């Protein structure tokens, strides 16, 4: 049995099939249960996948090596976000001033709040470095985390929790603050909730999705440029 498993893990096929199956199962399960919109299928799918890996005694490193073929698609998928960005350009142009004023501050605060809270609660430097990029889209966040000396696995987990919380909180807080503008809601989803928030924003409307793409990519750029610098200044 374990020999067969080793043989199957020799190619990326099993890892990719498991990931796709977990994703489908997550979506199907949430639809049958009628789960609320803030609960993204990826949360359930990740738990399912972790369970299956543990059950089959597949080493995470082996799984990851195969699934890297799937993550390769993150590159073209990020490029693809240029399409909605182009389609909504008139809307974005009309708001370029507030967007540009809000972004650097909000992106840096997204990192500062989390690192500050963890620091107050006594987390060690490596953990702090893993939390700093929690709102940044995965391909950029991996680079930042390596530069700061954090753990990429912890950062990716943080990405999931941040995305889920951002999706829930944006909806609630927008209601509380009386904000109904889909452009603001989309921007906040992308800025704070990276790819997961952006996927949610596209469910709201194409306009929200485009503003989320914009928030996500600008947060990525600003964080990549400023976080390593801020880190050095803080002497961490």
């Amino acid at each position: 049995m374990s020999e067969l498993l080793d043989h199957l893990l020799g190619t990326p096929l099993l890892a990719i099939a498991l990931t796709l199956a977990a994703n489908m199962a997550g979506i199907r399960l949430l639809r049958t249960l009628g789960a609320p919109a803030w609960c993204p299928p990826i949360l359930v799918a990740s738990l399912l996948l972790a369970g299956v890996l543990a059950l089959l005694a597949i080493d995470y490193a082996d799984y990851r090596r195969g699934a890297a073929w799937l993550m390769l698609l993150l590159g073209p998928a990020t490029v693809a976000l240029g399409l909605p960005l182009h389609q909504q350009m008139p809307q974005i142009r009309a708001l370029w001033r507030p967007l540009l004023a809000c972004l650097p501050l909000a992106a840096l605060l997204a990192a500062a709040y989390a690192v500050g809270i963890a620091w107050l609660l006594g987390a060690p430097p490596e953990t702090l470095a893993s939390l700093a990029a929690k709102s940044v889209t995965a391909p950029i966040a991996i680079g930042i985390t390596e530069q700061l000396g954090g753990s990429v696995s912890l950062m990716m987990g943080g990405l999931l929790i941040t995305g889920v919380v951002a999706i829930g909180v944006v909806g609630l807080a927008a209601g509380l603050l009386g904000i109904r503008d889909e452009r603001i809601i989309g921007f906040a989803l992308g800025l704070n909730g990276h790819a997961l928030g952006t996927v949610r924003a596209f469910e709201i409307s194409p306009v929200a999705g485009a503003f989320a793409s914009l928030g996500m990519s600008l947060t990525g750029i600003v964080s990549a440029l400023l976080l390593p610098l801020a880190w050095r200044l803080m002497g961490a």
Partner: protein
Amino acid sequence: MPALRGFLWLLGFLLSGEIVVTLAGLPVSAGVVGMLLLTCWLMLHGGGFDDIAAAAQPLIAMLAMLIMPGVVGVFFLVDELAGQWMAILAALVGGTLLSVLTTLWLMRRLMGKTVSRASGPPA
């Protein structure tokens, strides 16, 4: 095969992004630079719009699934991070709560000014 042609377009922009990032020594990922290049290309009315759309839409729809292999790794860190979970969860949940409120509040303030200066929000 519009989707395949579109995928080739996307790969072309990704590779262009990779070249820019490498030559300029930028700390940003090739994907983000490729995305900006694609936006500029489409705004300049470069070709291939329908092909690019055919490949881009399904890729955007699977964006969340593509980070799953990385995300799952956190469940295998449980032992290593014993005793830190409270701090980590508080930081992620509390930090995200605060940063979402900050973004929404900032945007409302900043946009309020723009909207009152202009004649109103665009349709």
